């Protein structure tokens, strides 16, 4: 069982290492991840929202839905823990 798990882990790791061949090098400014959407955020965020911290601007404004449902997720987690564990004595 343990050997099987180890082999599975090794195969997955080797596949991922093979996949890194196509990734951009460390700190490459021209990598696809840095070219597609983020230049718009960086150049336009302060102008459009007057928030100097771009991370906050993207978190609260451009990706508001993401943050909203994320708050809902953590709220649901709290409710789930309360309903699973809490034994109210009163």
């Amino acid at each position, binding site marked *: 069982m343990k050997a099987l*798990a180890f082999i599975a882990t090794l195969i997955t*790791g080797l596949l991922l290492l093979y996949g890194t061949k196509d990734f951009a090098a460390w700190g490459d400014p021209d990598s696809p991840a*840095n070219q597609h959407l983020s230049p718009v955020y960086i150049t336009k965020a302060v102008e459009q929202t007057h928030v100097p911290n771009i991370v906050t601007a993207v978190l609260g404004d451009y990706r508001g839905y993401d943050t909203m449902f994320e708050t809902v997720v*953590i709220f649901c987690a709290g409710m789930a823990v309360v309903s699973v564990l809490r034994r109210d004595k009163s």
Partner: protein
Amino acid sequence: MDGMLQEIVAKYNYWIYVVLMMIGFYAMIGKRNLVKKLLGMNIFQTAIILFFISAGVKRGGGIPILDKHHALEFGVNASQIVNPLPHVLMLTAIVVSVSVTGVALAVMQRIYREYGTLEEDEILERISE
């Protein structure tokens, strides 16, 4: 050989994340204790978070917090600021991972109360009894 070494040195960050991910993955599928599985999942998530953050790095880039008046007057050069998008996504991912860990710990406590053990095979035995 020399070319391969150069390749590894240029992408050593991915190698670190893959090793970290393998540790977490092995703990998730190889261990029998549920708490160890949960810790493995947390290590796995850490590897993914580090991977995303490293995707946003630019060589010589500054932090994505600008000087407001300077930015409004002269504009911003996008190549001198690191990519803020992975930071945002991983900020939410960290909070989700915390809540997942909390719910998992609560369910584990309930399992322990019910079956008196956290070892997977013993729990399966008790269920089939």
